[in-house]
């Protein structure tokens, strides 16, 4: 089977019924989509399939054969952050960060289809995503800042000297 993942053609060896989440994480070592529940209940595994947000944990490989898959790794050009990433950074929309990739991918899909999305539309789009840390306040603020154009410009990726260890 083959997929196009973040613009790269990939020949996939996993079984046809393997979840897209496991294909990404375990075969391709793309780890931003997270296994929060593998029951479709939390949204942490959300990726874009041909631009549409999908729960990768519930999506068998066979169902997306040949599709274009976009993960968080594919949003940035490697130097500059995408606007949604910059907004999450600036608005402190991540605490532990585990739900963040799914939140950002779902938000990206919304903002692509509905560029000036209202606060209500944002909340509806993210209704199926659970965050246990932030209380959602700064997540909604971040997405709203991109939707209403008040977010800071995407900047050089080296906005902070710190990094994960």
């Amino acid at each position, binding site marked *: 089977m083959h997929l196009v993942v973040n613009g790269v053609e990939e020949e996939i060896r996993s079984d046809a019924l393997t979840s897209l989440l496991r294909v990404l994480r375990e075969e391709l070592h793309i780890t931003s989509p997270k296994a929060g*529940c593998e029951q479709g209940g939390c949204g942490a595994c959300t990726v874009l399939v041909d631009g549409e947000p999908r729960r990768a944990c519930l999506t068998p490989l066979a169902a997306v054969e040949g599709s274009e898959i976009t993960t968080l790794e594919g949003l940035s050009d490697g130097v500059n952050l995408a606007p949604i990433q910059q907004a999450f950074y600036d608005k402190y929309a991540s605490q532990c960060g585990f739900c963040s990739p799914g939140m950002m991918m779902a938000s990206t899909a919304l903002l692509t289809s509905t560029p000036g999305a209202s606060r209500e539309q944002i909340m509806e789009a993210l209704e199926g995503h659970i965050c246990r840390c932030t*209380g*959602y306040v700064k997540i909604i603020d971040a997405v709203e800042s991109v939707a209403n154009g008040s977010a800071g410009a995407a900047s050089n990726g080296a906005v902070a000297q710190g990094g994960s260890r």
Partner: protein
Amino acid sequence: MKHRGRGLAAIEYPTGMNQGGDPSQAWVKIKPDGRVDVFAGTVDLGQGSKTVHTQIVADTLGVPYETVNMDVSNTDSSPLCTGTFASRGTFIGGLAVLKAAKKAKEKMLEIAGQAMEIAPADLDVEDGVVFVKGSPDKKMTVGEVSAAATWGFGELITGTGAHLKAYSMPDPDTGVCDPDHAISYAACVVDVEVDDETGTVTVLSMVQAYDVGHAINPTLVEGQIEGGAMMGLGLGLLEASYPHYPSTEGRGGEFGAYLMPGLPDFPEITSVIVENPSADGPFGAKAIGEMANNAQGPAICAAIHDAVGVWVPQQPATPERVLRALHAKATGAGEPRRDGKTVIFDEDVSVMTLADESSVFRDVIGV
């Protein structure tokens, strides 16, 4: 019909593991180019300890925040931290990194003093520059000092720190004990709307004020207040590992079966940070992490009573429980029993009514 109500709760919470005996340690070294490496053990669960500790080190050492590396990644390089719980990360973990940074600063000024031929007591550090007090044009950068240490004096600029509150055993009869450091406080006001036909309680707004002593990073404090608000909403209205406790029936094994607070439940959340500094916390800080979900539940129950006149002395206040309380009220069965000056609520669940060996408990709670 829908009814609105408001409820208040005020709480307090200690800092550090109860009864003490929970050390945190840290060590700091400065690279030859002046970058600072901190090795601490406080695990970051998302609350932001890496950030807060870096801020503490930056100001204690006098270097820019961006020049500090915070490494909590493994137990070979990091010394001991008892753990991230009991609201000890900012206070106890913070004191450990602060003390380590202070020691490193002393060493740095000692080296700078040698290099500049000035007594260390006449030197200070700010924004990565060591300067002579009163003559700030006489200076060396931290990088130059560290290079001098490395290549000139054969020294390493480092500092270690640790904080431990001695373990305190309580008196078994009285409970006399010295169990903790500073005490944090909070108050929470909740506005709800109760549907008296479905029992559904909707939280419209939460206003919360937290005394955190001193907010090392105010945005991270807000993060705890906001996160705690939703978790508290969950405790108050939604979450139950045993929905029919003490029965084990109906346990939810997935999100959706176990109800988590989400955007459909999202109220208006307003946060106020109060600063009543602690005597001995780092920069006067107290704590917030653990207490952040304690006030909302009882505030919601108070608001339910304000709205529809019933008490739900359980968590969560599910629609079923609210409806049962409304039904009891309608039939007159919901009133507490009055016995002289004593007003007794919730007799149906009390051990005085239920437990066979209630004499053991009667001495304790008989009224």
